[in-house]
């Protein structure tokens, strides 16, 4: 139900943009220190993912949408948990293709 809702889809769109921005920044940093730019490095991915989620949570709190989520019994962390999985899945897939 939550995953098919329009609200989750709007968060998914914003998160994908954040993932692209995070990936570009990560790849640029890796190139500077002469590492493969699109390689999957779990520690780095965790830090980038935490940053992406923090930005999205800030957007949600600023719009008081955490109250909307609260009124349907959802914690923000639970609502956004699928996006964490998505981050790692996308990053892993990209590293395999690269």
């Amino acid at each position, binding site marked *: 139900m939550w995953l098919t809702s329009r609200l989750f889809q709007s968060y998914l769109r914003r998160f994908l943009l954040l993932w692209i921005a995070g990936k570009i920044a990560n790849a640029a940093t890796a190139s500077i220190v002469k590492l493969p730019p699109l390689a999957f490095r779990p520690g780095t991915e965790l830090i980038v993912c935490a940053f992406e989620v923090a930005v999205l949570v800030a957007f949600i709190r600023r719009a008081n949408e955490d109250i*909307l989520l*609260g009124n349907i019994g959802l914690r923000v962390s639970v609502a956004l948990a699928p996006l964490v999985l998505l981050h790692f899945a996308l990053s892993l897939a990209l590293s395999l293709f690269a």
Partner: protein
Amino acid sequence: MIAGDSITVRLGGRAILQSAYVDAVPGKITVLVGRSGAGKTTLFEILVGRRRPDGGQVRWNGEQMSRPSLPLLARRGLFYHPDRPWLATSLTAADHFALLGRPLVDDRLDTTAWLHRRVGDLSGGELRLTELALGLALAPTVALLDEPFRGLEPRRREQVAAALRLLAERGTAVLYADHDVESVRRTADRLFSMEQGATRLVEGFRERPLHEWYHAWPR
């Protein structure tokens, strides 16, 4: 039901709330009335766990809650309507009803007229009515509403008052905050007066002159 007991909040050495008490009773409309800045919103935020008090406790059905939170309380049947917009502006009102999994079956607040418009395009009054209509659709056991009449024209205020009365008649414990002390006398079954961060339950608030029990009222 929900109660805040001996709630104390200090900010920069100043007491915002001083051992404040408020509760909601099933089937009754309880109103917390006080001037703007009296601490009503702070007290409501503590009840739903959005702010931690320096002292006191929140109870649900008599049970002390160590860490109350809105999602936890909502799963127990609470609906919280804060004093600021809280719907997703990119979604329509219909999307919100779908999110709740509750169809709009009782359009007491006339929200059908703008059901398929984006929330971000609604006027302040339409937005407020949509938020309240969502609360009605949830059929909560406790409704906590911070200034539900703010920004509404008189006809809409009557509609909202009737909707709150209907909720109470269905057994919901309605607790709302307002600063319009004269109008709450008509709506309230129970009334807490809040002044300088302290609350007290007022008996006979309909019959007694305002200045007797509401010290902020000019004599």
